[in-house]
């Protein structure tokens, strides 16, 4: 009895080992029989993409964006290119974890085609070879609609894009207040401090490393230390610490007047958003430049909510679309990305999602420009011109985590 069991067990182990090894060996290399994509003509790429399916992975927490992608964009690429767009909601951390797992396992053909990405994530994904490229030079709509010399087209958080991602939408930091409760809004960091003193416990910002909280602190750093020096700063903690010292002092001075006396901060921008919507806070900040309009429209904000920015401007950045290194349908992904760059889709994104479009107004035809200008963006917002006139560039991606670290060490609870 025992002997048989042993034999069965050994056989089983051998079987498992062979199975695993066979599976490793059968990883067929990416479809080499396809043509060389990087040298192909655009018409060939469109032809190759016809009838295929493209997956688009990105954050899925915005119901409006999900339905826009699933209806407007999906219908557009289906009608024009016979491509089926499949939208998959997944956080960027998990997308990158999945990709690096696939890279480690040597998988040549994954399941992710397009990725919604920017900033630090783009930097690390590109550095680790998780992205396919360069591809943007082959997209006709890049040339047709996008300002190719715009620093935000060339650089993402000061990191050279080098054709590995194409712009998707533009974000900009804005501040919100309820005009029924607040009359005077701060125009700069000094007035912001006065504002907090006048309304103790009614103002806060999300704890870093929250995306929005981090951007707000960087914005205050820009206010107090100037923004130019950071564009070329080395990613060295002591250099950064010295450069942002005035801002650190300022934030510490601010703490006693904040919510819960600055001993703790809300964990995320969504918590701050809820507190603002409930009237617990008088001040809110957002990376969605037109979020006042959407909040008022879905009823979560009072009708009297309004937007403002500091006189010296606020940080703006662009988010992008990239292609995974092991995308099974790179041609299809390129066609969909090109479609999203078109004035037609950018216009619907501006109108339905209230996102700043990435198209260059000077490249638009008179007709297209008129339809952009005709969009009713909603209540409580600043105009596109006002926003773009107050737009500051992001700092290098590598500085962002350093500032977050210093904030944790020196500001919170101090």
């Amino acid at each position: 009895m025992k002997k048989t069991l042993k034999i069965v067990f050994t056989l089983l182990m051998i079987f498992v080992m062979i199975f695993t090894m066979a599976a490793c060996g059968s990883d067929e290399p990416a479809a080499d029989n396809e043509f060389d994509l990087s040298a192909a003509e655009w018409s060939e790429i469109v032809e190759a993409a016809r009838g295929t399916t493209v997956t688009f992975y990105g954050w899925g927490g915005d119901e409006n964006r999900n339905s826009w992608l699933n209806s407007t964009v999906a219908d557009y690429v289906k009608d024009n290119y016979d491509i089926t767009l499949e939208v998959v909601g997944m956080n960027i951390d998990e997308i990158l974890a999945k990709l690096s797992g696939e890279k480690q396992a040597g998988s040549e053909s994954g399941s992710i085609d397009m990725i919604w990405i920017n900033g630090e994530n783009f930097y690390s994904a590109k550095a680790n070879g998780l992205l396919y490229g360069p591809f943007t030079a082959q997209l006709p709509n890049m040339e047709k609609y996008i300002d190719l010399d715009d620093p935000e087209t060339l650089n993402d958080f000061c990191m050279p894009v080098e054709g590995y991602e194409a712009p998707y939408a533009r974000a900009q930091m804005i501040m919100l207040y309820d005009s029924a409760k607040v009359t005077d809004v701060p125009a700069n960091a000094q007035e912001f401090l006065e504002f907090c003193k006048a309304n103790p416990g009614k103002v806060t910002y999300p704890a870093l490393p929250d995306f929005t909280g981090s951007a707000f602190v960087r914005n205050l750093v820009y206010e107090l230390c100037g923004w130019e020096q950071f564009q070329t700063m080395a990613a060295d903690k002591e250099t950064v610490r010295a450069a942002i010292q005035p801002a650190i002092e300022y934030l510490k001075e601010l703490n006693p007047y904040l919510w819960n006396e600055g001993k703790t901060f809300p964990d995320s921008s969504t918590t701050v958003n809820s507190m603002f919507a409930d009237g617990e806070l008088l001040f809110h900040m957002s990376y969605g430049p037109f979020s006042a309009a959407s909040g008022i429209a879905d009823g979560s904000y009072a009708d009297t909510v309004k937007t403002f920015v500091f006189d010296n401007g606020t940080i703006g950045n662009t988010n992008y679309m990239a292609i995974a290194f092991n995308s099974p349908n790179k041609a299809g992904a390129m066609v969909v990305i090109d479609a999203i760059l078109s004035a037609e889709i950018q216009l619907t994104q501006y109108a339905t999602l209230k996102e700043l479009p990435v198209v260059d107004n000077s490249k638009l035809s008179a007709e297209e420009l008129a339809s952009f200008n005709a969009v009713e963006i909603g209540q409580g917002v600043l105009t596109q011109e006002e926003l773009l006139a107050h737009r500051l560039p992001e700092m290098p991606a590598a500085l962002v985590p350093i500032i977050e670290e210093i904030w944790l060490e020196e500001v919170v609870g101090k």
Partner: protein
Amino acid sequence: MNKKAFYVPVLTITFIAIIVPVLLMVLWSFVQRWPWPLLLPEDYSMRTIRELLFGSANAFHLIVSSVSLSMTVALLGTVIGTLTARASEFYTFRGKSLIRFASLLPLIVPGTVLAMGLQIVFIRLHLTDTVAGVILIHLVSSLPYCITIMTDATRALGPQLEEQAIILGANSFKAFWLASFPNMIPAFLASLNMGFIISYSQYFTTLIIGGGRVKTIAMVLFPYIQSGDRPLMSAYSSFFIFSGLFVFMILELLIKKLSKETISNETEC
């Protein structure tokens, strides 16, 4: 001790800790605005219900795929759990205690670590982005519970009844089917429920192995929870809880009916 003096506080605490938050969540699903310090919401709307039913995620499709996936896991888990329990209770073999211990390992290793490690193996086996892969990884998480439940039940029942049946001429399967199975129905129910709920609530493992292609309610729910849209996340959470409860009720009914039938069959024989 007075029975009432014990039950009343326990029931009150249960009510406050479990029922009230769930009711609040159902209410939140219909809230449009609820500013402090109002006791009741200022405005109500059906927006979340519309988005849930007719939005980008197809609720009906989701519930069918989610429930059938988790039911498969629960059934497989219970079968494997029963077999493991019988092996470790009724037979002696070398490494038995090791296997018993190993069956609990997935509980000790954090799920995230497990998923990240298994991801690479699954990629090589071409199991990522497939339903089969997700069922397998859910099984890993559910099995410790199924095995523990079935082991306790098997031990409590003992081999005597089956031995009796075999002496009376039944083959070993028939002995199990007629003697042990009807007596173990409550344990099967517990194991099925446990396997179901563990699989139903998996997020990270589904995400990593399913790669976003295998859609379950938890998968769609999670991004909304992060988005901070409270009415929408309440609507999704209520949908999640009540769909799970619904499956529990059906299971319970089925099993009750089944146990009645087997018992009446037995008496007929």
